Structures are given as C-alpha cells and as structure tokens.
C-alpha cells in the first residue's frame, strides 16, 4: 500500500518513509520483506519517533516539505478503506465486543488520499499545508506527565533488552498510567505478554493479562470507544 504510493509519487519528487515502532526488529522484518519496499523502511526499536514527531498510535504520519519543515503534524494515515469485519455466530463475547469497536475505528482513507493528491498538484499552495505556527498548534498537548511517561518507557525498553521483561514491567506500567492516550506504549507491552511462545506473529487481540493493568478492549472502551482511538 505505502510502497504503491511511493512508486506512484517518487517520479514527482516524493518519498515515502515507513517507520516500524517495534522493540524487536524480528517482528517487523517479515512485514517489510513481504512489502519489498523501494522506499526507506526503518525500524524504531526505541520508539524515539513517538517523542520526536508526536506519534501515539499507528498508522500515523507526518508530512515534511523539501526544506525539512513539518507541514502536517502526526495524524491518522490511511490509504485504503477499512474493511468492516463480520464474525461468524458463536464467537466469544469478548471477540464480538472487540470487533464492534474495531468497526468503529475512524476511516479517513478518502480524505487522506485527497489531501496527498492536492499536495502533489499544488505543492506549498495546497490548502492542506500548514504554517509552522499551525503545525505546532495542532500537535498534541505535552504535559510533564507525558514526558515522564516517555522517560519511563525508555527505561523499560532499555531494561527489556539488558535485563529482561520482568525488569521492564514496573516502568512500562508507570508509562501506561502517566500517558494512557499513548497506544504505542501499551500495545507494544501487551503484545509481549499475550503472544504465545513460538507464535508466528504478535498477538493483536491483546486481552486481559496478569502483568499489565490494561488490555485493548477495556482501554478502548475507557477512552470512549473505537471512534476515539486516534484522539
């Protein structure tokens, strides 16, 4: 999908850069290999782009112009319409409830693609290109609690690598408490405990577990439902 966009726009001066927020590169590489990207395809094992660009969930994007200026801050980025998922009868109630929230996730694919087309056609004159002041104003508020959450998450990921998951848990729990709106902190941690040993892919259901207080469904509901998933 992003490779297709890059191939389409590369001749007219655009580059797509994808960044996988994955603490373990081994989880991202199969997806990258399958996409066979010709654009820069990077892995952010420390989630440092969260802090630098304001990502709080995926997929999100920032737009950067020819002069290295951000012209659209972090926002939901979709190129293809979300597929509404229907479940066969008899599925567990928790799965049914989870899919109900998934089906409420915002779909901006049409408007997002229209914005890109406008930027391609009009460059800096596009109505979707923001001034530096507007970029800063539209970025999310960043109180001390969120900065402390980022530091806690970083301590946790360092300990995850150097000591083990158990040492990371207190810091990641604190990061989740301090910044519950950052889904990358939570989903990264949850999937490490809910994915069965030896599984082919990370667990995306991220259900209740004994290690972290939250889980995907209950936290989405607490945040106001799937409609509010990207803030």
């Amino acid at each position, binding site marked *: 999908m*992003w490779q297709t966009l890059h191939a389409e726009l590369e001749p007219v*001066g*655009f*580059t*797509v*850069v*994808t*960044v*996988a*927020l*994955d603490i373990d*590169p081994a989880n991202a590489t199969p*997806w990258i290999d399958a996409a066979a990207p010709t654009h*820069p395809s*990077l*892995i*952010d094992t420390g989630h*440092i*782009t969260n*802090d*630098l*660009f304001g*990502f709080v969930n*995926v997929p999100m*994007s*920032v*737009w*950067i*112009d*020819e002069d*290295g*200026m*951000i*012209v659209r*801050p972090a926002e939901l980025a979709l190129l293809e319409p979300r597929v509404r998922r229907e479940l066969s009868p008899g599925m567990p109630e928790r799965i049914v409830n989870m899919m109900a929230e998934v089906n409420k996730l915002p779909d901006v694919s049409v408007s997002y693609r229209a914005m890109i087309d406008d*930027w391609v056609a009009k*460059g800096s004159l596009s109505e979707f290109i923001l001034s530096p*002041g507007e*970029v*800063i104003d539209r*970025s*999310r*508020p*960043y*109180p*001390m609690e*969120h*900065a*402390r959450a*980022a*530091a*806690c998450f*970083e*301590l946790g990921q*360092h*300990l995850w690598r150097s000591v083990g998951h158990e040492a990371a848990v207190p810091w990641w729990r604190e990061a989740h408490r301090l910044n519950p709106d950052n889904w*990358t902190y939570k989903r990264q941690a*949850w999937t490490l405990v809910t994915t069965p040993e030896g599984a082919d*892919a*990370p667990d995306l259901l991220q259900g209740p577990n004994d290690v972290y207080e939250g889980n995907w469904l209950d936290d989405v509901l607490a945040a106001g439902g799937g409609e509010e998933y990207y803030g």
Partner: protein
Amino acid sequence: MDPLDFTARTGWTAKPQGLCQGDVCVPAPGAIKADGTLDATVISERLRMPLVHDEAHGLWALGPASGGKALTTAVAPDPVLRDRNGDSFSLSSLRGRRTIMVAWASW
C-alpha cells in the same frame, strides 16, 4: 551526557547561547560542562525534561521537553534510524524532496 546523543534523541542542541531547537533558544548556564559533555540536571530543569531514575539498576532516563505541545518547532527532527539490514538512515538525506513519514507496527 554526550551532546550528539542529546541532539539525536531530543532534537535540541546545546550551544553557547543556550539550548536550541529550530529558532527557539532557552538560556541554560552550566548546561555545557568544561569537558564538553552536558549536565542532565541543568537541562532537565531548563527544558522541563523529567529525569527518571531506576535505583536498582543504576539507570537514568531524560524525558522530552514538556509543558507545551508535542512539537515546539516545525523544523523536522533528524533521528538516525536503521533499516532491516541494520544500515543507518538519516531523514535529512531527503532534503529537496517532499516526504510522507508513516509510523506502523507489527503489533
């Protein structure tokens, strides 16, 4: 703290006139130590960057600047990230092109 690491991870740079990012500079006397390294305590206070300490493992982490917006400047940070082969890539190498940077994850 190493000045290059500080800039790469925070987007801020320690200069004689203060701690700077884009066209914003915050005075920070004492931030640059005599040996050229940076004093994390001074920087923490001046930029409202929380210092978090793990006593059991002897670790400290300096969080991002806080108290305002997620972005304090529209100048794009220039983190150096690695690709699936371990090769490093700098975002600033794309100057002159329009860039759509997309965050995704396997989880």
